[in-house]
């Protein structure tokens, strides 16, 4: 890592996305927007892991019809596997959150998080 801006650019984006995600969760009033904030966070973390897995001059670890010079230069596909798993989990989390949001809207008649707080104290 030579410390240049270009190399670190993905990580700067990750930091910005994290900040944006936490801002969205923390300061938006609409429940759907809060759910979107969680999704932004998830995107940030996924991007972090994918950026970690990038190797300059490496090739995708697929032997099917790979170019000849790729042999011995293939990258480890673990980060991609991690990201995929986390995306799969993210789909389930989002679906469940939205289902809860629909149900909350039916019973409370609102999605404003300052009013969705019958449970407190």
């Amino acid at each position, binding site marked *: 890592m030579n410390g240049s801006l270009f190399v670190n650019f993905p990580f700067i984006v990750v930091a910005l996305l994290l900040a944006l995600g936490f801002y969205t969760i923390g300061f938006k009033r609409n429940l759907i927007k809060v759910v979107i904030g969680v999704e932004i966070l998830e995107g940030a973390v996924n991007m972090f892991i994918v950026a970690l897995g990038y190797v300059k001059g490496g090739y*995708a670890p*697929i*032997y*099917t*019809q*790979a170019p*000849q010079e*790729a*042999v011995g230069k293939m990258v480890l596909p673990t980060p991609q596997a991690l990201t*995929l798993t986390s995306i*799969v989990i993210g*789909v389930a989390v989002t*679906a469940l959150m*939205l*289902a809860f949001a*629909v149900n909350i809207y039916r019973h409370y008649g609102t999605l404003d998080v300052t009013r969705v707080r019958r449970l407190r104290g």
Partner: protein
Amino acid sequence: MTTTIIKTTTRLLAPLILVFGSYIILHGHLTPGGGFQGGAVFASGLILLIVANVRDKVQELFEKTPLTQLESLGALGFLGIGLLGLMSYTFLKNAIANSGFLFGGTTPQGINPGYLNTGGTLSYLNIFVGTKVLAGLTSIILIFFLILRRERDEW
């Protein structure tokens, strides 16, 4: 929301998407993709069919489709393939590879044009995961679709 444009596009696109989804599932051990991605593509084809149709027809059709059973089948198949490795190996051991069984062809070393009949348990796992994901995602969207359309009618 069903206009003529959506209907016509769906009629053209949906079969292609479904075929492409099955391709990604089946070639999961050779090319990028696999069970989840292929299942998601397949499910998006089904979802296109859902949103392009009227609510009553969709409900009528999908009440007969065993989505829950398909989901259970996919998960159980995954577990079963995993348990197959317990015969003298460990859980999830690739016991079928190079055995001559279906998908058990000899895996070539190095760069190759890609032989479908390889991969051992991987191919089976992809198929089962694909089944589970397409059933799961379709039922998620279906439930939201049915809820929201009903609410629209009630409004």
